[in-house]
């Protein structure tokens, strides 16, 4: 077992388990806060999930104060092709991601060891290590935190939905009629606020576990320093001859899944669409930017070299005739 432990597992495990774990586990608040400075990742063991939706309910309950309370009627949008996104009348929807539901249970009917099984697992923001939503947000509203969380600042977001479009899983969901855009040019720019899982950043700041992890009766999820989570994911995958998702997807995410069946198979079996993310392999979306950033270091050197070269040639031309005059 890795060096990570959830609070529930600790309580359930009893003295024997606690004693066994004591040597390797960090105190909860420090572990959760990322005292080592390393990004925190979560591990979702698909085998354990029973689809009870306790995590969904806990997420909704804990994050309710963050949910949008839109002002109606919505401002008229120009041009007319701009559509409002209103989930405020459908707050109970729990079978997909919405501004009021940042976590849902995805279901896949698959064959495990020749036996048909229904696998369920929580889906939410993957909290990428290099999140395109945060990198490409033009307002700095979507940001990556040092502890590996990517969150959208609802006070700053204008709801342009760019983060949804650049996210490989199209996770963030928009609610119209709320946020900063109402104070700027509500009819001509922006369209609300984007919402998604913030991995309970405020609870983590207080040394608490994210609500979905804390409430899970089956200990489906764990949180800890990423290298330990990766190590544990590999240990489980080796033990069950299973598969990992999230370790390398989009250059690496801070949400890792371990499954007894290949993710290609899971991806085929799940319902996909708006608010229902896929499980396909994902290339590093920001790799091009990282490569070009290296070229930016060389560019000024090339410019300086060209100018110095010109100066050298000019000087030679100037001194040339003088030498001939001698």
């Amino acid at each position: 077992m890795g060096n990570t432990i959830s609070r529930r597992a600790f309580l359930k495990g009893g003295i024997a388990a606690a004693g066994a774990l004591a040597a390797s586990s960090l105190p909860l608040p420090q572990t959760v806060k990322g005292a080592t400075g390393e990004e925190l990742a979560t591990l979702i063991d698909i085998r354990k999930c029973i689809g009870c939706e306790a995590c969904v309910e806990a997420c909704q309950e804990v994050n309710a104060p963050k949910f949008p309370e839109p002002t109606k009627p919505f401002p008229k949008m120009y041009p007319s092709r701009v559509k409002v996104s209103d989930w405020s009348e459908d707050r109970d929807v729990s079978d997909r991601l919405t501004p009021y539901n940042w976590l849902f249970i995805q279901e896949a009917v698959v064959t495990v060891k020749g036996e048909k099984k229904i696998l369920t697992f929580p889906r939410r923001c993957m909290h990428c290590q290099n999140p395109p939503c945060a990198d490409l947000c033009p307002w700095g509203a979507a940001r990556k935190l040092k502890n590996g969380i990517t969150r959208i600042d609802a006070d700053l977001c204008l709801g342009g939905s760019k983060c949804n479009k650049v996210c490989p899983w199209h996770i963030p969901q928009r609610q119209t009629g709320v946020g900063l855009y109402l104070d700027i040019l509500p009819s001509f720019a922006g369209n609300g606020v984007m919402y998604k899982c913030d991995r309970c950043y405020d609870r983590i700041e207080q040394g608490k576990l994210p609500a979905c992890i804390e409430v899970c009766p089956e200990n489906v999820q764990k949180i800890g320093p990423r290298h330990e989570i990766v190590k544990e994911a590999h240990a489980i995958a080796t033990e069950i001859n299973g598969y990992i998702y999230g370790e390398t997807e989009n250059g690496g995410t801070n949400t890792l899944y371990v499954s007894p069946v290949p993710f290609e198979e899971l991806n085929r079996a799940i319902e996909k669409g708006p608010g229902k993310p896929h499980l396909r392999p994902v290339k590093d979306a920001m790799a091009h930017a990282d490569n070009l950033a290296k070229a930016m270091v060389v560019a000024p050197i090339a410019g300086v070299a060209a100018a110095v070269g010109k100066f050298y040639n000019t000087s030679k031309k100037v001194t040339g005739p003088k030498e001939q005059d001698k």
Partner: protein
Amino acid sequence: MKPKKYKVSGEKRIVKWLYILTFVVMAFTGFGQMPIFKRYYISDIPGMGWSADFYFTHYIHYLGAIFLLALLAYVMVDYFLITKRNVRLTASAYVRIALLTGIVLTGVIRVLKNLPEVVFSPGFTQFADISHLGFMMLYLLFAAIFLGLKSGWVQAR
């Protein structure tokens, strides 16, 4: 007294147009980072579909930044080594240089921010993102004013 006219060489004319072209590309792809081109039908113009592809415009913006950095370094060193003997910067040039410095510095910060191992504080991230756009808007505003005033970058000594 009327300022002496500076005779622009062929090379400087090329540099000037390369700079303008790069700046236009940077401005367009920069504004394209905001989700406005699809909303306002720019990407519906035949041949402009790419303008709504955030990854593509970002790629072009980075390529433009590489070229701009090389060009600025060239012009700067060339000015101090050679051109400065014959010309001096105008007041409007100092304004443009100040704004350009702001654009470049905040742009560099944004590039650093986008590297996977670099994480800035939320406030600093927000400052860099918004001020990059702010400096650019101011630059365009002053460029238009200076164009109207026919105030160039340099004048003969």
